[in-house]
């Protein structure tokens, strides 16, 4: 661990945190552009954040201490994951002290407190959002675990960083089908976990359709800022995991170029998500398990093709 490797690590960390609202903002702007609306600025996320952290916050009288502490516990596990994400470029320092299971566990921890937060204010919406979130995340979990298993077989390592580095150096050419299945499955999980169309619509405030928004309906100010930040960071985590594990190229290039390629890959993920959002309708809640079932089946297929070939 020298100064330069450490500074690269910290640079990546800061970049990921700072760019998180821009990435989700970019998706929003692109969607509006494709829908022939006048797109919002991609910096809108920062403006919203600035507004939220400077205004008075209104707390529900019906809420308990849970509303005070839960937003922190929604955000801090996700912030902790950022420290363990794979390195973007060669020579960057990385922490190899947790493995992929712990990362999914931390994501679940964040979701757990988000659901409790939704149920705290005694509103019908919060309970509804929590119930739906519980339904979706219970079905996401198996796909996630099987996906981890599959990718760790191909990367011969379960630590996320080591796995990404291994994949960057040895693309699993003999298991390309398996790799592809795992990639598609992970992409479905990316959509489902981040509440994008077709699983959930991040823009709607209609009670028939909303999942994530319903849980945060009674939050304002600082608390809402924390939750908004958590959701954009969660997208960043999934996107950067996707690009470092399933698009493993550009790692060995010079530092500046590697960063550039990493950002371009993130943009590509964002464009794909926006494209899917524009071209599909939101699924009915009871159709969502079918989509997640596809992810589970693909993860199984990935494991089976790995073993039999």
């Amino acid at each position: 661990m020298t100064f330069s490797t450490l500074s690269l690590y910290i640079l990546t960390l800061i970049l990921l945190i700072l760019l998180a609202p821009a990435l989700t903002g970019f998706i929003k702007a692109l969607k509006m552009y494709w829908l022939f609306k006048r797109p919002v600025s991609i910096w809108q996320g920062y403006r919203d954040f600035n507004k939220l952290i400077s205004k008075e916050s209104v707390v529900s009288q019906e809420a308990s201490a849970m509303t005070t502490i839960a937003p922190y516990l929604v955000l801090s596990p996700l912030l902790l994951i950022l420290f363990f994400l794979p390195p973007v470029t060669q020579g960057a320092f990385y922490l190899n002290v947790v493995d992929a299971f712990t990362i999914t566990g931390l994501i679940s921890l964040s979701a757990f407190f988000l659901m409790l937060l939704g149920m705290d204010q005694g509103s019908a919406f919060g309970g509804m959002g929590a119930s739906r979130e519980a339904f979706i995340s219970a079905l996401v979990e198996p796909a996630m675990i099987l996906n981890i298993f599959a990718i760790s077989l191909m990367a011969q390592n379960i630590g996320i960083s080591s796995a990404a580095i291994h994949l960057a150096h040895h693309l699993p050419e003999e298991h390309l089908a398996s790799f592809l299945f795992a990639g598609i499955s992970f992409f479905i999980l990316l959509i489902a976990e981040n509440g994008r169309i077709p699983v959930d619509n991040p823009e709607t405030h209609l009670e028939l359709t909303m999942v994530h928004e319903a849980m945060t309906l009674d939050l304002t100010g600082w608390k809402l800022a924390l939750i908004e930040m958590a959701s954009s960071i969660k997208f960043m985590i999934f996107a950067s995991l996707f690009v470092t594990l399933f698009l493993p190229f550009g790692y060995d290039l010079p530092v500046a170029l590697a960063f550039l390629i990493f950002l371009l890959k993130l943009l590509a993920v964002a464009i794909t998500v926006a494209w899917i959002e524009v071209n599909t309708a939101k699924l009915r809640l009871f159709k969502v398990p079918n989509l997640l079932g596809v992810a589970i089946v693909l993860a199984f297929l990935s494991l089976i093709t790995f073993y039999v070939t």
Partner: protein
Amino acid sequence: MTPFFQLDTLSLLFVALIVLGSVPNLFYTAGYLPHIQRKTHFLVHYFAFIGAMIGVVTANTPMAFLFSWEVMSLASWQLILTEGKNRQEGLTTRKAARFYFFMTHFGFVFLLLFFLIASQSNLDLPFSEMALSIQAFPYAWLLFLFLALGLFSKAGVVPLHVWLPYAHPAAPSPVSALMSGVMLKVALYALFRFLFETLHPWPLAWGVTVLLLGSFSALVGVLYALTERDIKALLANSSIENIGIILMAFGMGMIFDTLSLPHLSSFAFIAALFHIFNHMSFKSLLFMGAGNILHQTHTKNMELFGGLIKSMPITAWTFLIAALSISALPPSNGFISEWMLFQSMMASQAFTDITLKLALPFAMFSLAMTSGLAIATFVKAFGITFLGLNRSENAAHAKEVNVLMMSGLLLMTGVLIGLMLWAPAFLKLLDGVVYSLNGQRIAADLVPTSFSIHAYNPGAVISPFWLLIGLIALTSLLVWVKSQLKLQTRRSHTWACGNRVQAVNQYTAAGFAAPLRRYFQSLYQAEERIESQAQSVHIEDPLPDDAPHFKKGQHHLIIHPLFERSLYHGTVQLLKRISFWIYHWTHYEKFRYTYFILVLLILVLLGYRLGVTD
């Protein structure tokens, strides 16, 4: 003369489990005692129960084991009946106790058969000499079957689990905590003891059977826990789930042992033992918390709770810690044992048998599904019970319970947090126990430093201590940032679409589980009925003007559990039908009756003849 009772490493570990489980429970019981009517009856059986459990885990001969086992069963049976003389709940309690009595003796018969064969009818033979006499018996699988039926009916493994969701809610809360937290583990102790000492080289099929039963139990347990509205029945169902998880780890250990992968086998057995301790800590805590609520609100129905976090803060926060741990969320101790189980399943890539290799992802799927559903279950259990508004008058009058009961809860929380923070040291201890069983030490690989735990898959490492520090540091950073911002806070009502915020508008426990209940409808066979009363009632009894004008209605939801419906009820129906048929066939004619007796006699003689020649 061999001693009846003897302490070795495994016994000592389980004595430690019983002590850790009962000391906080003693405090809790001391606080709970004023609310028990038959105090002497309760106390005699309570101490007999704890003593008998210690007797079971230290027994050295079949006689001592069976005696302690029976005392344990009978004492717990009487403890379930403590409230049996109450007028209102007495009937269900007596029914639950009868069910438990039957199931536990069903198991006892098979245990007795196991011992009679294993020790060649000499019930004073010490366990260490039983392995020799077993080698003379040609059908080892029969012994395994008897042992499994005997122990799994006690441990609550599917399909012998049906008594749990009845017996645990019926018992007084400290007793449910003991039964669920400790007694179920005593049955698993016997599994460790007899499989290792008397049946040791196992065929592969046994390990696979245990793994299958475990994964099945885990899924079935958590699925029924999810839809349960009785909070203690929810916890009882979740015990079935956790016993399933322990058995999965145990089955993995057996499979690895058969395939001569001793390191991995030790790893899986350590995971099983660790989960036994974890489940003891969080399940006792949850049952005690549920007991506090029951004590204050006089109901077990979750639909009548709500908002208890404000009036019962200590109960609520300890319940939350236990809920985090049982949902296997990092960095809790429950997460560590489940992590170890995932790791040992991932190590299946070392298998050469392709069928087994392809089967393991399915076991992993069921474990992952279980942990996903467990999160949903405990969000429901905590959220509906403690958050939101009071849903009934009972909940509105709840207060924090007395100091003794509280100290029981806090002590158990201490045990739980200790298991989390000192997990590496504790795993080292468990390694010593597993070493005494299979002679394979893996402490150097498992816990090379005192802060992290390693698995055999490359890159698999976890450090609960540092994760906790990281979470605390980041949270404090955010809190500090907030304090620098100097924001103003105003309190106002929750937005309820312009209406007054009312408790009836909140999501109910049944509503919370509705999406999953609908998705797994074939398993639940839920009978749903909505009775909405006619508009005229509404006019006769007008609501106050500011209240939203809803029609009064009632939602009935009855769930028919699959196994009770098919296996148990089915068996009863079949037996009834056969006996009815025999009765009809023989009753009216003497000749048919004699004929029937003759056939039976011949069958018995033939069976005896076959048995002897074998």
